[in-house]
């Protein structure tokens, strides 16, 4: 999955260089940090067909899209994944699969290779079976490790993605050791973005600053040891950094995400922002959605920025941060991201980090991502 700053040296020139297709929100796992919508279950009946996805691929390629991630949900839930990969590959995309590894059988790996798949990003949560299985709500650990070994055996470049939270941050060292032994070239420690399921579980998930600093040292030691053999992506979470992330390299700048129902979005989370009009490729040409739609124009560029960003030198680096986080914590997506120490709402972020630091807390069980866990009726108009 594209990082906030992904070593991009190609000027976007207004093109959606990075395309993410959330081909389904269906998934056999129940991760409590999942960034999928709370009402993910309602999308199953509205998923685009194979032909509709192919049309999206053609239109996106015409707009200049190059990097493509198949994600979800669990993309392997779609039996037409191989067909879509082959189609995208022939169109000239660099194809990535973002998967939990569940359903990645030998037969499918062979078929994906034949289809031209270039890279696989596999998520792993822990180095111990009991921990992984409890976290994802299924017997998944051994299947995930097995998937990792077979991905390597088939010679795919691989990214190991470990979402980082209080429950697993102590395993940073063991995870890198395991990955080094398997010969994995790239590990991404993904700071949890607190939207949707992750936001519901934020108080339980957020690591303390102490834990984060410790993990940072572990990472630094491994970087020194492993050198070029492995790239380790690890950054201090924006909550602790006092500086916002350059979210998506700017709204509608280079990233385009298509939800299972064909809705085009500047990022995977944008639907949490109320009052914006979300339109589907079923109803509008993709070129119009990207270039003209009110949604993509709303926070594009720097002209819409509020204070304190307008008078700040950093605005061309971070574009005022994340719109979704601004909405979730301040109630207005047009505000400066409160992760920024200069935001008048920064106290909201401090509240969360203070809660994480409190030694004696009442522990709540994690909400599992599952249909019916929360009532989502209030989300409907």
């Amino acid at each position: 999955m594209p990082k906030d700053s992904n070593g991009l040296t190609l000027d976007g020139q207004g093109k959606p260089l990075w395309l993410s297709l959330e081909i389904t929100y269906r998934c056999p796992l129940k991760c409590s940090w999942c960034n999928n919508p709370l009402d993910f279950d309602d999308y199953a009946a509205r998923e685009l067909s194979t032909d509709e996805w192919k049309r999206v691929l053609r239109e996106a390629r015409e707009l200049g899209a190059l990097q493509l991630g198949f994600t979800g949900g669990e993309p392997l839930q779609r039996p037409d994944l191989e067909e879509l990969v082959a189609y995208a590959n022939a169109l000239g995309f660099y194809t990535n699969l973002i998967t939990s590894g569940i359903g990645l059988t030998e037969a499918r790996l062979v078929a994906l290779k034949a289809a031209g798949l270039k890279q696989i990003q596999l998520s792993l949560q822990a180095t111990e079976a009991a921990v992984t299985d409890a976290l994802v709500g299924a017997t998944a650990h051994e299947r995930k490790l097995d998937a990792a070994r077979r991905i390597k055996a088939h010679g795919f470049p691989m990214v190991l993605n470990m979402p980082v939270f209080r429950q697993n941050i102590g395993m940073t060292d063991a995870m890198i050791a395991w990955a080094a032994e398997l010969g994995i070239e790239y590990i991404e420690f993904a700071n949890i973005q607190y939207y949707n399921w992750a936001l519901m579980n934020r108080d339980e998930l957020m690591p303390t600053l102490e834990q984060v600093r410790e993990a940072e040292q572990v990472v630094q030691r491994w970087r020194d040891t492993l050198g070029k053999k492995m790239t380790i992506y690890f950054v201090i979470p924006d909550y602790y950094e006092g500086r916002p992330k350059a979210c998506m390299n700017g709204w509608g700048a280079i990233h385009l995400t298509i939800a299972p129902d064909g809705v085009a979005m500047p990022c995977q989370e944008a639907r949490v922002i109320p009052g914006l009009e979300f339109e589907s490729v079923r109803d509008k040409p993709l070129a119009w959605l990207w270039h003209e739609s009110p949604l993509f124009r709303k926070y594009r560029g720097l002209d819409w920025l509020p204070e304190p960003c307008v008078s700040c030198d950093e605005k061309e680096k971070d574009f005022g941060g994340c719109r979704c986080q601004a909405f979730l914590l301040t109630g207005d997506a047009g505000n400066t991201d409160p992760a920024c120490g200069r935001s008048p709402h920064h106290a909201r972020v401090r509240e969360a980090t203070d809660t994480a630091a409190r030694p004696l807390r009442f522990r709540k069980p994690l909400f599992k991502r599952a249909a019916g866990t929360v009532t989502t009726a209030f989300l409907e108009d």
Partner: protein
Amino acid sequence: MSIDTPTLASRFRMQWEEAQQAWVLLYPEGMVKLNASAAEILKRCDGTRDVPALVADLETAFDTTGLEPDVRAFLDMARQQQWITEA
């Protein structure tokens, strides 16, 4: 340590990109736009020629001589970036 017979590393995909009017190099975490000479060199990194043959090929194609130092410097950089490996 320099390279004898360079070949594009398997995680890279190189292609002419109409929308950019340029050759681009695609890899898992991103992409780079190549300038014309970089593209001409990388196109020839296909594991079939060693560096002298690659230089000779370029010199013929562009009807010139003396390219070797530049080509070697570029290949060194490309190897450090892990764009190319030994065939």
